[in-house]
């Protein structure tokens, strides 16, 4: 009767779980490290230093793909160097992350130069240096006042972008953001809930470009491409390094008034942690950051968002493929 049907279902469930738990432990990507009992002399790889084992590090990150990947990369690289590392990914937005850092809940997290200047150090969009290195210098100054060190920036730049579908761009002849001023009152903009208040988002678009959209709809950051492809949004705010941009053929409107600041990524660390961690910390972070070009970052994001791998796995792949970890 019913009981035997439930019993069968139960058995099926346990069998499925047992299979899943046992079978799913293998590496997915082909890994040729199977036999490595004797350690090869590392060439460009990260060297494990026993002295680092006494230093505890907590690496944090904000709550979207690129941030989680960056957090994992630094965490795994530092762990390979012998540190004791744990992660606190998914902190929230930059204010939450900075608070966690200042309170000592985390040791470090990757921040963007542009974001720091806008959100922490009181720069207005027009005052921000357009040159990435100068922007970094200014950000580093600001962090230093908070007893934090901003590590060298990554090559890649990840800015906010104003995106429309190809159809919309063709329909209204849109190439740069200023083109929107004629038609904004007919268009619906979708963005993250904080977008309304951000100078590098809707607030900035209103102030710098004088755009008045027909409607602004807040959606979760994870849905930023979905709403464009499903036709709900006319305009959406995406990131430069989003793999979906190329895939869906979105048109990223040109920032002709230079509203969006440069966004290189820099790992921001507490000074007391840095002092305790020794010279290996700086070296590992600098080396690992060097490999993160635009192309590479996009590829890594694509592996998480499109191939649906976890940030942890993808970070490990990066470190292996770039030669940091054997």
């Amino acid at each position, binding site marked *: *009767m*019913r*009981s035997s049907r*439930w*019993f069968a*279902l*139960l058995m099926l*469930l346990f069998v499925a*779980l047992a299979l*899943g*738990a046992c*079978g*799913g*432990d293998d590496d*997915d990507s082909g890994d040729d490290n199977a036999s490595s009992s004797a350690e090869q002399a590392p*060439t*460009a790889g990260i060297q494990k230093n026993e002295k680092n084992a006494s230093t505890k590090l907590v690496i944090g990150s904000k709550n979207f793909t690129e941030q989680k990947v960056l957090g994992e990369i630094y965490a795994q690289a530092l762990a390979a160097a012998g540190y004791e590392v744990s992660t606190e990914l998914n902190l929230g937005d930059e204010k939450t992350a900075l608070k966690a850092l200042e309170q000592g809940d985390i040791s470090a997290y990757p921040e963007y130069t542009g974001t720091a200047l806008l959100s922490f150090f009181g720069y207005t969009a027009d005052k921000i240096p357009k040159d990435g290195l100068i922007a970094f210098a200014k950000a580093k100054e600001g962090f230093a006042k908070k007893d934090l060190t901003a590590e060298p920036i990554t090559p890649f730049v990840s800015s906010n972008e104003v995106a429309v579908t190809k159809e919309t761009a063709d329909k209204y002849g849109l190439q740069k953001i200023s083109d929107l001023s004629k038609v904004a009152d007919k268009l619906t903009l979708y963005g993250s809930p904080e977008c309304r208040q951000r100078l590098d988002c809707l607030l900035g678009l209103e102030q710098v470009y004088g755009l008045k959209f027909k409607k602004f709809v807040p959606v*979760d950051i*994870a*849905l930023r491409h*979905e709403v464009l492809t499903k036709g709900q949004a006319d305009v959406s705010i995406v990131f430069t390094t989003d*793999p979906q941009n190329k*895939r869906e053929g979105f048109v990223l409107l040109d920032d002709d008034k230079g509203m969006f600041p440069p966004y290189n990524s820099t790992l921001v660390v507490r000074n007391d942690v840095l002092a305790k961690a020794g010279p290996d910390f700086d070296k590992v972070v600098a*080396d690992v950051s*060097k*490999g993160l070009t635009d*192309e*590479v970052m996009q*590829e*890594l994001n*694509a592996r998480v968002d*499109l*191939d*649906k791998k*976890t940030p942890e796995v993808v970070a490990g792949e*990066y470190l292996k*493929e*770039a*030669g940091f970890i054997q």
Partner: protein
Amino acid sequence: MILELAQVQIRDRTDTCESNNGFCPDWIADNFDRYVDPFFQHAYLTVVAVAIGFGISFSLALVAYRRRWLINPVTQVTGILYTVPSIAAFFLLLPITGRGDDTALIALVAYVLLIIFRNVLAGLDNVPEETKDAGRGMGLTDRQLLWRVEVPLALPEIMAGLRIATTTTVGLATLAFFAGAGGLGEQIFSDITFKSNVVVAGGLAVVLAAALDGLILLVQRAITPWTRAVAAR
């Protein structure tokens, strides 16, 4: 030492199932282990919450069975706990108990209380007076009467309440990640547009509910053999 970087493989992505956020059996098979830990965490939260909730409300019901004036106040209080949406409860507790399993468990236990309390009482109240008289006639003390006659006869009602409490708790525990307690809800939330993810994580929650429900039913059949002869409820 100059750092010589190896090349990171840049792939040329064609139209794969997962990049389209579709339902992809291959991907599911490869990545199923991602759901195992959350599943067991979910099961843990549910079982512990129901067990604790049952312990508390069963005892309360036994006390209220004798002291009838307790029924109303207990029902009112547990009723309010029952009504407060779990997600609100998680956040109302955060300032007091912080993030983690305990906060989630407290909210989940609170929810279970009314269901079990009402059902245990109803079960006990439904025991026919004649049966109790017969028991007393046989010389049973009040305590013996309770444990040898009333509770066993109330079991169907009690187990029914237990089953309802369990399936509802599985549903509520999906939101437990808001309190920092993990579970299958965290998986769902991590990629809410990816069909495979939503179906597997959601599906596992339903399977868990069904499995626990079936388990309790089996236990009920085992400990109340006299009901097996009766036609299905």
